[in-house]
């Protein structure tokens, strides 16, 4: 009897599965007859974002901001009278989940383009699906060069709206050597994170080019919490500054432990530090640390947006992800308008031709050779009295 029940349950599940997938397409799709071939009534845009997991603090805010902006676009008439519809899925900042999400968006929801992901590794994984399907993918804060260019060849359907890590590494190195007057630096990075290992490498290259000396380079594995063995070794070299290009949790712990070991120099980090978490977790140890960021709450260009976001959700957006995602949407809307079609290749061609487009964080011009935006500024921030303060702005020459 029990076996009978079990078998019946399995059959039910199977039944659900078949119905679930058959009915997966939204009713809106079939009801409307497109008046123009190639452009459906509703333009679906996928949004792959981490709504749960370690990166969710940015992801939640990014999702809120993008929804708000999409509504605004629709209120202003959409794209040539057609409304845009966001299809948002959670990636948990996990590559496998993101690949599944991309498959689902393309095959089931039939999105015309995808915004995301925030993490370089996740975005690169998604290209395995989006490139063969010729669906444009716009990375938000995916700063690794390989996101858009692989082995010297540009990925035809992949773009980004942020600067790239060599630039970020250069900015960090330049700031360390000129503004902080550092002659020696040490690096602690996370070998389990592609972002962290790349950024460490770019920083080292740039810092050495500027005549500085790297006195130590140590790594730990994702999930490890005790870095005192590595930090003790780094401290031996007596560096002026320790560069820690890791996520906020690890960075906060590392700074605490370095202070416990009696290190008295300065700390420097990358854009992953830009979360209030780092202050809560690091307490007094993170005070005075500098980091490179993509956007700042004090940037005069985005004050309107911040006010609007605050009015809608009652809190500040967690930068930089929300503004970067909105930039991506602005780029996409412009490209679809110009292309006059939702064909993937046509949209990509239109993005390549974008020049001086007024986006949220500034004017965007695309380099067709690399699919990177030109002249994206980097902002140096400092942690002071439990707040992030604006220090300086760097622009690529």
């Amino acid at each position, binding site marked *: 009897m029990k076996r009978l029940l079990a078998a019946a349950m399995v059959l039910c599940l199977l039944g659900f599965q078949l119905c679930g997938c058959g009915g997966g397409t939204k009713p809106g799709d079939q009801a409307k007859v497109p008046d123009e071939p190639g452009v459906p009534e509703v333009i679906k845009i996928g949004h792959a974002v981490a709504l749960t997991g370690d990166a969710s603090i940015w992801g939640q805010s990014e999702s809120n901001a993008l929804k708000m902006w999409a509504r605004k676009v629709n209120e202003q008439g959409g794209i040539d009278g057609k409304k845009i519809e966001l299809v948002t899925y959670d990636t948990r900042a996990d590559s496998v989940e993101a690949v599944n999400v991309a498959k689902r968006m393309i095959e089931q929801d039939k999105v015309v383009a995808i915004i995301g992901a925030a993490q370089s590794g996740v975005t690169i994984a998604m290209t395995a699906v989006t490139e063969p399907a010729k669906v444009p993918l716009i990375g938000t804060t995916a700063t690794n060069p390989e996101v858009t260019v692989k082995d010297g060849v540009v990925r035809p359907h992949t773009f980004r709206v942020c600067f790239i890590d060599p630039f970020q590494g250069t900015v960090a190195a330049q700031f360390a050597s000129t503004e902080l007057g550092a002659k020696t630096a040490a690096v602690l990075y996370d070998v389990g994170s592609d972002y962290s290992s790349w950024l460490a490498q770019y920083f080292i290259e740039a810092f050495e080019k500027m005549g500085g000396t790297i006195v130590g380079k140590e790594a*730990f594995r994702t999930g490890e*919490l*005790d870095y*005192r*063995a590595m930090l003790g070794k780094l401290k031996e070299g007596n560096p002026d500054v320790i560069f820690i290009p890791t996520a906020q949790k690890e960075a906060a712990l590392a700074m605490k432990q370095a202070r*416990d*070991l009696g290190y008295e120099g300065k700390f420097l980090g990358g854009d992953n530090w830009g979360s209030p978490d780092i202050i809560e*977790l690091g307490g*007094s*140890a993170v005070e005075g640390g500098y980091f490179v960021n993509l956007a700042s709450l004090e940037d005069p260009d985005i004050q309107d947006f911040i006010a609007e976001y605050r009015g809608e959700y009652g809190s500040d957006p967690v930068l930089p992800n929300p503004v970067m995602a909105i930039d991506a949407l602005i780029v996409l809307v412009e490209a679809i308008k110009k292309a006059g079609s939702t064909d993937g290749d046509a949209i990509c061609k239109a993005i390549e031709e974008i020049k001086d487009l007024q986006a949220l964080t500034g004017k965007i011009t695309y380099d067709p050779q690399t699919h990177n935006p030109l002249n994206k500024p980097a902002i140096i921030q400092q942690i002071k009295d439990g707040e992030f303060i604006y220090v300086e702005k760097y622009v690529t020459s």
Partner: protein
Amino acid sequence: MLLQTTITGLAIGGIYALMAVGYSLVFSVLNFSNFAHGSVIMLGAYAGYFVLTKAGASFPVALAGSMLAGVILGVTNERLAYRPLRVRNARPLYFMISAMGVAIFLENLVYATLGAHFYSYPEVLGRSIVRLGGASIGILDLFALAFSSVAITGLHFFLHNTKSGLAIRACSFDMTVASLFGVRIDRIVGLVFALAGALAGLSGIFLGMKYMAYPTMGWITNKAYVAAVIGGLGSLPGAVIGGIVLGLLETFVSVYISSIIRDVFSFSALVLVLLAMPNGLMGRYVEEKI
């Protein structure tokens, strides 16, 4: 450098030892790997955090709170997940699976309810450093080492100088015979889990203070399991020695060879110990009984 490395290694090894002792205690009596030990440690850390911040209590109260949470959880686990199996005289494999189930359940329950948020303890003991001839050690590490030593010595004393301790040791030799001599097995097993839970709570609050409290922190216990095997499963002195050896080995490998491939060394050490001394450094005879 050598001194600093040794101190850091001891501080890490001390925590491993504390975790391994709780795990080994259960193993010595019930002969199965209690993979849920890590989850009890994790919840102990959360309990300590909430007592400290939400109830605004002092550190000793928080310490008692997390140990109490560990005791309650340990005993509840035993009652719900292991006792039915013990009554049925089930195979050790079933105990292991059940323990694994408890671990997965508790960890993901926290994840689903409290989320992946990291809770950082307030700096109750301050951030002062004690300098020792060129090396430095955090005051928190000194506290953790002192408390661990007191707890482990206390446990040793309890096992060797009280009637209940004698009963526990008797059960670890042979439960059936012990029960023939009038030992109330259910009570003794409950006591063992309460002791292990208290140790887990203690490890939890120190781990939480040293690092932070978050859902997957129970996985640090994997290192304690490895330490227990190196020391010899089921042997309490073995667990202490295994923990300290592993802590020192890891720190020395990190400093003098490479921090990245440290885990490969820990694992190779495990395999080498098993090849040379199948019962671990201090292991008693643990081949399956005839």
